[in-house]
């Protein structure tokens, strides 16, 4: 039985894990870097150990140092959170070797999930559809053309050594493909001295829909429904919701069965996520497994009524799942907004610094997981996620309206946040009607609409703003007067000495 857990992480997820541990009477061990001396996770844990400098490589990624803490503190399990070491199979193996219960899949399964090519092959074996394309590298343009004709145009030609827009080309017919193959090859050789090309179907207006996988050490496997995470910027999720507006009960079950197969195919244990792209045509294609607890897990907790961290601990303890798929029912609707410290108008550049004051939203069916407290600091060394604001509703619109109200109540001083953008999105017809896709922001010009909303907002506040300016001047006038009279007093005193 797990009795003491080290959380090899920081920020809101460290606090989230500790909450469940505390309720279950499990001792918690925090680790922290120089930058986190005043962070809440250090203050909340039963024990807290300093592990090094601010840069992650010197602290939160320092496997040996973290192992030392585990061994010296008598920790029997480690929760990796997300990010940092959470999907590092070397770390999972190191824990296994040292008889520390790694709360997550086995190192072997994690390694398989992390190797995109091998994982894709395993899925194909298990009849889980992946994005159509070449099973591996293509040797020449003619093989690429054959595959393109099999899967249908448009296709992407990608050099596996490319990146950042180089070594990738969208082609829509045989002629373009023949030309493109040469271009991609030469671009790739020019950039890195070698080329290796794969062919993949190009999907338009795709949605990102993922399933929560859950599998115990005895092979019992269920899914805990889907989440739609299509609203993204730079391939990073901003807003998630469950259920997805395009998944009905039949579809949920159909894809759910694939998810169970996927988990079995990689011998997955504990909680994980199977990510899919959904084409505009309605097809689902497996993309990858996230072998960890995910940022957006609270919305699945809200509709399932399950505590996922407790579930993770139970599975790690070798317990058998206490339910079958047929026992699980979705209840209501939930939305998560990731409250990031970033400037929407500066291409989402991080905004860091002290937060002198913060008001955390609350209320019926509102949950806010955050590391913020008045006087805390948003560090430039770590990711920009300050808080996860989640709301539940009996209907989708109830959860949406509660979110808008909670966003409005969320007052974070000192840094720029993504809150204004989320208000614009959640008020939009496109969001209300579930017209989602991974290019949602660009497709519906959300940033331009945000700008207009902000201008309107300022116009609406003309009178209170002017009143503020008038009163501020008055305040300063009276302050200067009282200072003058103080100075006068002081002067009088000096004269009388």
């Amino acid at each position, binding site marked *: 039985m797990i009795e003491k857990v080290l959380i090899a992480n920081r920020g809101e997820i460290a606090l989230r894990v500790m909450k469940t541990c505390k309720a279950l009477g499990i001792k918690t061990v925090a680790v922290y870097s120089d930058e986190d001396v005043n962070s809440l996770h250090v203050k909340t844990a039963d024990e807290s150990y300093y592990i090094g400098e601010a840069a992650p490589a010197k602290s939160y990624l320092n496997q040996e140092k973290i192992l030392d803490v585990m061994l010296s503190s008598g920790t029997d399990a480690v929760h990796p959170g997300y990010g940092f070491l959470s999907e590092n199979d070397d770390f999972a193996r190191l824990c296994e070797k040292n008889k520390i219960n790694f709360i997550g899949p086995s190192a072997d399964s994690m390694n398989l999930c992390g190797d995109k090519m091998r994982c894709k092959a395993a899925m194909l074996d298990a009849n889980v559809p992946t994005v159509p394309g070449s099973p591996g590298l293509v040797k020449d343009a003619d093989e690429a053309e054959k595959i393109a004709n099999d899967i249908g145009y448009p296709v992407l030609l990608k050099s596996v050594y490319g990146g950042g827009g180089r070594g990738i080309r969208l082609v829509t017919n045989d002629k373009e493909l023949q030309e493109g193959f040469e271009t991609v090859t030469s671009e790739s050789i020019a950039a890195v001295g070698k080329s290796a090309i794969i062919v993949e179907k190009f999907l338009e207006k795709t949605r990102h829909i993922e399933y929560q996988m859950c599998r115990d050490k005895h092979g019992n496997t269920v899914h805990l429904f889907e989440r739609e995470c299509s609203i993204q910027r730079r391939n990073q999720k901003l807003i998630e919701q469950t259920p997805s507006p395009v998944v009905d009960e039949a579809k949920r079950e159909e894809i759910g069965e694939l998810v169970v197969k996927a988990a079995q195919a990689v011998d997955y244990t504990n909680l994980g996520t199977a990510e899919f792209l959904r084409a505009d045509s309605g097809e689902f294609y497996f993309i990858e497994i996230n072998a960890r607890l995910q940022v957006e897990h609270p919305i699945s907790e809200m509709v399932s009524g399950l505590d996922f961290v407790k579930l993770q601990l139970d599975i790690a303890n070798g317990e058998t799942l206490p339910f079958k798929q047929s026992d699980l029912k979705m209840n209501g609707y939930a939305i998560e907004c990731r409250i990031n410290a970033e400037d929407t108008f500066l291409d989402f550049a991080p905004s860091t610094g002290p937060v002198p004051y913060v008001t955390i939203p609350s209320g019926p069916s509102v949950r806010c997981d955050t590391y913020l407290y008045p006087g805390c600091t948003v560090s430039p060394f770590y990711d920009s996620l300050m808080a996860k604001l989640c709301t539940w509703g009996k209907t989708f619109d109830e959860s949406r309206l509660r979110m808008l109200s909670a966003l409005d109540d969320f007052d974070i001083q000192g840094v720029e946040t993504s809150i204004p953008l989320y208000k614009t999105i959640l008020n939009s017809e496109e969001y209300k009607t579930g017209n989602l896709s991974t290019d949602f922001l660009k497709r519906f010009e959300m940033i331009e609409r945000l700008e207009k909303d902000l201008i309107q907002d300022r116009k609406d*506040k003309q009178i*209170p*703003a*002017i*009143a*503020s300016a*008038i009163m*501020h001047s*008055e*305040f300063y006038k009276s302050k200067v007067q009282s200072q003058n009279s103080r100075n006068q007093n002081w002067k009088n005193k000096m004269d009388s000495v």
Partner: protein
Amino acid sequence: MKYKVQDTDEIVDGEILEKLSQNEYKIKIKDNEYVVKILNMDSNIMEFVLNNEFHSVRYVDSQTSEMNFIVDGSSMSVNMNSHLDDIVYKNSGGSDSGAGQSTLRSQIPGKVVSINAGEGSEVKKGDTVCTLESMKMQVAVKAQKDGIVKGIKIKEGNSVNKNDIIAEIE
């Protein structure tokens, strides 16, 4: 005092009419009167009830002519000046003292936003000849006497310095 709120076009009059009690003021904005009840106030924040609506303001940075603050969560700025138009008008000769001059000069540096009375227009004293943007506020440059606008020296979009000639009015 005149105020201009970011993203609005109008320049608005605002003043304290009366101190009603220790924490209450009657103020006037545009032509409407409001009662301001101060709940908390220091150099950084102010909480007040304006005609029964609560507002919370944090002052970020305030200079003589521009204040940046966060009003009910919205970051915004307000420009203010003591009757800039009037000062400019007066200094241009609009007041009795300089009524005889024919040269209309800019009394402030700024950018020409629009020319309201073009070459050859007939203007009355006090008519707007052109509009400048200065300190983020739009300021009308008004004719110092009746006459015909001649020799306009400015173009829309150009910058002018203090004392630059705008036009002759003859």
